[in-house]
């Protein structure tokens, strides 16, 4: 029930994100979700894409450093307290969240991407609490 995220190392120079996205556009890859974490010197662009392998190959061919990480796509109710309910469950189970970002909305629900330090434990806890988790294929092409 894990989703593969690709991440790219970027220096903080003008136009670098656009270079990455243009490579993906040319390879006909759709970006489903993204988040950018940055420091003064560099950034890490994290992406959920329609075709992980193709995206990885295309980016590497152009000299980018590409990493792959397992993340979890979680259904979150789109109403006040929706995200809080899930975070409370995780906190009580002592599960650490490294970072979160939003995918897109599906009906009355949002889908959020969670990166855990221990993905397997997190999955067990979420499943035990009947939280809906999406499969990779679902997320790559809703």
């Amino acid at each position, binding site marked *: 029930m894990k989703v593969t*995220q690709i*991440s790219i*190392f*970027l*220096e903080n120079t003008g136009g670098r994100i656009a270079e990455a996205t243009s490579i993906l556009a040319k390879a006909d890859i759709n970006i489903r979700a993204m988040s950018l*974490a*940055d*420091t003064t*010197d*560099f950034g*890490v662009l*994290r992406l959920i894409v329609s075709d992980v392998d193709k995206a990885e190959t295309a980016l590497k061919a152009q*000299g*980018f*450093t*590409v*990493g792959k*990480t397992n993340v979890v796509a979680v259904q979150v109710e789109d109403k006040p307290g929706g995200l809080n309910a899930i975070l409370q469950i995780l906190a009580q189970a002592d599960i650490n969240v*490294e*970072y979160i970002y939003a995918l897109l909305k599906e009906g009355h629900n949002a889908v959020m991407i969670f*990166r855990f330090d221990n993905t397997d434990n997190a999955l067990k806890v979420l499943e035990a609490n009947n939280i809906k988790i999406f499969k990779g294929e679902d997320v790559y092409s809703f």
Partner: protein
Amino acid sequence: MIFNIDFETLPREALAAIQLKRLKATLEKVYATVPFYKNKFDEAGFSPSGLKTLADLERVPFTTKQDLRDNYPYGMFAVPMANVVRIHASSGTTGSPTVVGYTARDIETWAELMARALSAGGAGRRDIIHNAYGYGLFTGGLGVHYGAEKLGASVIPVSGGNTKRQIVIMKDFGPTILTATPSYTLHLAEVAKEMGVSFKDLSFKFGIFGAEPWSENMRGELEEALNIKAVDIYGLSEVMGPGVAIECYEAQNGLHIFEDHFIPEIIDPVTGKALPYGETGELVFTSITKEAFPVIRYRTRDITSLSTEPCICGRTHVRMKRVSGRSDDMLIIRGVNVFPSQIESVLMKTEEVEPHYQLVVDRVDNLDTLTVKVEVSESLFSDEIKILQGLEAKLSHDIKEYLGVSAKVKLVEPKSIARSEGKAVRVIDNRKI
């Protein structure tokens, strides 16, 4: 004023006669007491008794920094430890540092030469010397200190660092001579300005600057900012320490090498062939009076030229031009010697790092800064910022620990470091010196 008028103004023929006598004695001594030199001379088929003229020195094999390292710590000493009264060492190396020793007579000689140097740089008995060279294993602080006392001047042993306190001392104690590295001096000038202290109101007349490369432009800057005359001093611990050569304030045109104690040569750094006066090449020294740590044809890697033209100050000793560069890739960063290969070995210790790196040296607010760019390979990449920042911090810490120099480590994209003929350009030195 000339501190030792007899020796510093010797006619050159008389000087040569003294050199030959002292050189012979030194070669015989090292052959008999230092196995390294005996083996080297034997291999080269050179016998000290075969030295008839100064020109025969060309037949003697060179000594390199690596030779000194290989004989760490005391292998090059020519006297028993019982006769050694002082030990200094070069800092900032990953391999073995270079250890040098001095007998009581060596310390006397050094003090004499340093007194000569201070005197040539404008100092006298009535002067108060603010000595901001570091005291410790580094030869700068203690070298200047003993020379200042020998000269009869008053020395303030302030050492390096604690800049604000130094400004207060300069204001209150009224020093007339400043001895420091040029970059630290410019830093002192800035801090003084911040504190509302103008060097023009202080009592300084002369500054004697060395231990790192500097330029004529920087001289202008120092003389302007400090309202003093800035004099260049040269020395290296392997040969003795500060006081091997000094510019006279009268001419400020080349540094007189104290030839009654050292024989300088200029060689072609590639072929090793000795070059005539006036030609530019690598400076090589043979010490001819040192007891504990004599050096024979020691390759300094410093690039300069020599001139025997008479000087208006009256000294007859040969003058070397300001050092214009190095024949190896050594960098001097805030007084610390750094070889790119040392940084490389630190990076290699962190196994994730592949050795695509580049050193960028700058001078910011008159202090040298070192940035180490490291290309991010897939094995060290992480989607988590904290891991990447942790890696930068770890490498920076390791460099400080092994080399003694602060560096900012900056992760960069693969292939972003310029390559020339397939080889990465290892060093970019943006300092205008």
